[in-house]
């Protein structure tokens, strides 16, 4: 059996290798599947996957699956996918139960005594810290309530040649890949060099979970008051275009 990862959202699992009224389940972005046999027809792969607490066997188009990356990267994007689905794909709001409790768990991951009902406390960096901590293995990551802290560390590690789970690059130096982070400035324009020298500035980072055509899809916390996705444009060479105030890409080194 070969392990593969669902690369888009709401993928139908079918009883037979064909488009017809034969849907037996659905898979979410970042779900793992086991390919159980050879391709059938022009696109259909037999798979086995966990759905709703059970296991199903069926067929999925090969076009919505990708090869797995390193275990550490897969664990990280999986955390993003799980939490995005928990937040009803960005439709659930932060201050309503049970979602407020999830935000409280994000805060607990950085030992901050907040319960998720503190509406005016920005929790996006707490979400990143939660996802990285849950993924495990990211030794040296700066778990913090401010994105600028770990972003600064990643940039410094790269410039100084230090071993670190993330290295920060300018957007024209590294093509974003699944498991990386995309960081943007907020309110006050800053650039890569500023971020290399400072660790206290307003910013926001999300984790790359999918790349399709000329778009990078990320998932982050406190985006439209939920765990939500954001789309960033990439150019024909695969680099971010710079839209959306992006100033750095943090390459996942694991």
């Amino acid at each position: 059996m070969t392990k593969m990862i669902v690369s888009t959202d709401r993928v139908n699992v079918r009883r037979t290798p064909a488009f017809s009224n034969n849907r037996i389940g659905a898979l979410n972005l970042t779900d793992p599947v086991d390919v159980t046999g050879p391709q059938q027809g022009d696109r259909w792969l037999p798979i086995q996957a966990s759905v709703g607490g059970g296991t199903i066997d069926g067929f999925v188009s090969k076009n919505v699956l990708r090869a797995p990356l390193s275990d550490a990267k897969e664990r990280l994007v999986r955390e993003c996918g799980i939490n995005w689905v928990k937040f009803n794909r960005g439709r659930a709001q932060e201050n309503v139960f049970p979602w407020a409790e999830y935000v409280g768990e994000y805060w607990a991951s950085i030992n901050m005594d907040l319960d998720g009902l503190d509406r005016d406390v920005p929790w996006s960096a707490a979400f990143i810290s939660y996802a990285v901590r849950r993924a495990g293995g990211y030794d040296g990551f700066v778990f913090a309530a401010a994105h600028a802290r770990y972003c600064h560390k990643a940039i410094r590690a790269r410039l100084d040649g230090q071993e670190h789970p993330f290295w920060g690059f300018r957007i024209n130096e590294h093509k974003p890949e699944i498991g990386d982070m995309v960081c943007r400035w907020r309110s006050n324009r800053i650039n890569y060099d500023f971020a290399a020298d400072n660790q206290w500035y307003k910013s926001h980072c999300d984790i790359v979970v999918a790349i399709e055509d000329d778009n990078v899809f990320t998932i982050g916390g406190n985006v439209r008051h939920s765990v939500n996705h954001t789309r960033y444009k990439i150019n024909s060479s695969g680099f971010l275009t710079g839209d959306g105030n992006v100033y750095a890409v943090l390459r996942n080194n694991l």
Partner: protein
Amino acid sequence: MKKYFVIALATILGALVFYLLQNSYFKHKPILLDASTAYDVCGTLSIITRDKVDLNARPAEFSLSKGALTQQQTVNVCIEEGEWSGIIVAPRGTKNCEIQGAVNSSGNKYNGPCEYGWVPTEALRMFAG
């Protein structure tokens, strides 16, 4: 003699009030919130780093003080103007300053239940955002 003294005093006071008005001492500058963002409209929590700092009504030294903030007090930083930060201060025990609600109801001008004003940016240290 007393009459001249009263006239002189009134003139001086009038000039002082005129001077203060001319220099906008009493003017309040509202905290305007950026409602166009996908993120929290303020988006940064900071703490006061000085023993005591005035919460000014406008971003200037020469300003009416609306109160005093003390070291370690937590504030929402919503906007910066020069060397000043526009902040919203939640009294201890208040979980919601209704910042988002203020955006929805008043066209970006904060009018929620918490105190607001301006402090020097150098008197703040960010810890979340």
